[in-house]
């Protein structure tokens, strides 16, 4: 790891300051290039920037270097720089990536072309308008319980909920989803992220809401043809298709496409009772 690091970090001169100045470490003397989309919704161009390479640097480091030294107005979203917040999603060579988690070295000196997320309108440079996601989020019935916390829930009741709860809302699954990216069904289709959310809500043993009709009608789960593109890009490893979308599709099918239940609904005229979601997920 330390190859190319010519100094001695243990060499401390003063007691009252940081032992290791940042830039003295890891500079390789080499330079690299990135190409960044510069423009807005009306169009733009790829602009090439050259910068000094530092060992272990991520693509976001490269962009922030360009921003500080060459293009102060280069727009990019980022916050935690630790892959916890999901702000810095963009596309590198056409694939959605977290800029803070993608190392320059991965491209081995090859091209690094950076675009904003393509499934949404571009605001400027690497920043897209992702507000649709917040509108969908607001429309989903929130967690609601008849029980009073503190709940008694056992690890085995809830362990399947940890996975969908890991979502950092980077919206890369949304970006890569054909229904949104290619077919622009933003009005009809909530997108993978929100099936992940619906999944834990529907599986939570203490939740008392029924969201199946919403998932079918408002969120348009039928549009998904399970190509698994979303699963492939999830930076926190949620198996979106297998663990979120398919189980929800099955429940919707059981509830709305089961002839016996269809008949019952016709007779009783209701939207369908709470299906097995809570009951089958109890202990």
């Amino acid at each position, binding site marked *: *790891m*330390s190859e190319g*690091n010519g100094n001695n*970090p*243990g060499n401390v001169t*003063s*007691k*009252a*300051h*940081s*032992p*290791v*100045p*940042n830039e003295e*470490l*890891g500079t390789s003397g080499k330079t690299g290039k990135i190409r960044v989309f510069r423009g*807005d919704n009306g169009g733009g161009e790829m602009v090439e920037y050259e910068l000094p390479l*530092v060992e*272990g*640097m*991520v693509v976001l*480091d490269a962009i922030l270097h360009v*921003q*500080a030294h060459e293009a*102060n*107005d*280069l727009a990019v*979203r980022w*916050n*935690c720089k*630790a*892959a*916890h*917040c999901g*702000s810095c999603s963009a596309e590198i060579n056409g694939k959605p990536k977290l800029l803070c*988690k993608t190392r320059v070295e991965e491209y081995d000196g090859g091209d690094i072309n950076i675009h904003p997320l393509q499934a949404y309108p571009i*605001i400027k440079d690497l*920043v897209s308008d*992702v*507000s649709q996601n*917040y509108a969908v*989020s*607001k429309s989903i019935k*929130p967690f609601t319980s008849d029980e009073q*916390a*503190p*709940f008694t*829930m*056992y*690890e085995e009741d809830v362990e399947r*909920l*940890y996975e969908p*709860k*890991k979502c*950092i*809302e980077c919206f890369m699954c949304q970006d890569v989803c054909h229904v949104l990216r290619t077919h622009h069904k933003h009005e009809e289709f909530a997108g993978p992220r929100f099936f992940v959310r619906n999944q*834990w*809500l529907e599986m*939570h043993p203490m*939740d008392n809401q029924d969201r199946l009709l919403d998932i079918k009608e408002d969120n348009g789960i039928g549009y998904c043809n399970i190509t698994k593109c979303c699963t492939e890009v999830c930076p926190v490893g949620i198996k979106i298709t297998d663990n979120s979308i398919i189980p929800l599709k099955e429940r919707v099918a059981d509830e709305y496409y089961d002839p016996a239940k269809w008949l019952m609904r016709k007779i009783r005229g209701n939207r369908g009772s709470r299906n097995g979601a809570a009951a089958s997920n109890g202990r």
Partner: protein
Amino acid sequence: MDSNGHTNGQRERYETREHDVLIVGAGGAGLRAAVAATEHGLSVGIVTKSLLGKAHTVMAEGGIAAAVANVDPEDSWRQHFVDTMNSGKFLNNWQMVETFTKEAPDRVYELEQWGALFNRTPEGKISQRPFGGHTYRRLCHVGDRTGLELIRTMQEKVLATDAKVYMETTITKLLKKDGRVVGALAYTRENGKFIHFKAKAVVMATGGWGRIFKVTSNSWEGTGDGVVLSYDAGAELLDMEMMQFHPTGMVWPPGVRGLLVTEGVRGEGGLLRNSEGKRYMENYDPKKMELSTRDVVARANYTEVQEGRGSEHGGVYLDITHLGYDGIMKKLPTMHEQFLKLADIDISKEPMEVFPTVHYTMGGVKIDPETAASTVPGLFAAGEVAGGLHGANRLGGNSLSDLLVFGRRAGEGAAAYIAESVHSADIDEKEVIAEIGRVLEPLEKKESGESPYLIQQELQEAMMEHANLMRDGDSLKEGLGKVLALKDRLPQISVPGSRLFNPGWHTAQDVRYLVQISEIIVRTALERTERRGAQWRLDYDGPDEELGKINFIVKKDEQNEVGIERREMPPMPQHLAELLGGDKVADMAGGEKRGPESQF
């Protein structure tokens, strides 16, 4: 909404939006305040510099401290009180600590009621893990992503209310009338449009200011907007000299230097060793070892490296390999991923290299312990931007419960204030126009001037050099000279480009806050001539009994300069003093290195 135009040479339009309560910041404190205010039927606007759900709360990893006593039945709010006061070296506002430790359990249960999911005990209760300085296992957690769970829960709770969220919007000034805060001016980052917010009360919940240092665990947002906006509006600040250095930040590779390594690693049994393989904490705090308080462990890690016992890249070793791959994936999966992806280190097989990183600001806006009201009518503050709860050193896990306890109180306080007071939020339009002019200056300069990025870098380097976790008077004075020189250069800042999502322009706003806060920190660090918690003066021997009775209160004086007042703390009531017993004397010695090689 209505639009106003004006003519003063050029025409500059701005929108006007009205809310009962304007909340600045959408981390845990701001969102909890919003929920409280909407429960009173009030119109709430929430302004955030980022997208919703990206605030720094999301970075909290280890857990939320609350004496729910699920795993250690002996725990109580009283012991949580004692631990928090001890850690804060008794500079804490005892009334805030009492309120906080009593209410924290309810705030945790409330999160669960709203859908948050914590790891469970075998009895089906919320599980709790040990953490530095907590006598009992006290941190409710979900793996090492507790902050994500908290913010997502609060975000979804707020989206279910009528509160209006203004994402990627920046406040530049609080507006006052007749001594009261009655709104703020803001611009949207997306397109640079200005908004005049009229509000009956404003809740400041903007978080901390770690970005004044180069090596920090804070995101770009941690520029302390709220503390300077409040200071400019006339509010009192306290304990500004107290900056927390988290003992364990990443050191390698350089791009991730300062990134947080959760205290949960030590909570789960992580061992600190130096290059000689020695568990050196026995020289600093043999009783608590790795689970000592953050100030003590940070100084220990720093000292080991200073004295030549550091790791290859200038850190110390933190070893969690004994937990094994399965244990790590269950308890610390985020850390495993972070080191594997960013540093090519498999923490189940080899130790991490860590070094202190600027993490948290104990000081901030002085608030009323009951209502979270600042000293300016109409202005409330909660979370990291507020001061008083943590004293000279914050305990890990206390920040998340702080957000919820005082976030709620700020929302309630604002609602009560609005119910009691009737006043107009109309202000002289000229003030809005003048502020818009000031904010636009860096974009409208004809000739190129100073780069805001380079001023920020110079400032960060000066603060690293002169106001780090070991301080001395001469170095602080030199640092103050550098900070003031940078302050003089601020008017020359210019940035290229348009108002459309222009980070250079945004940085030009931020850097003003960073420089002002740095000046305040250095000046108060010069005043506190002792060693206490996070303030560690090498040119003074130990804690000073007299200084232990006072807080340094900062307020803008009549010449617009930093005014500093030594203010005596109120005496602790009997029922709380009894809880502390003999602890006070015993613990004050903590953090001094023992043994013959000590240089202190």
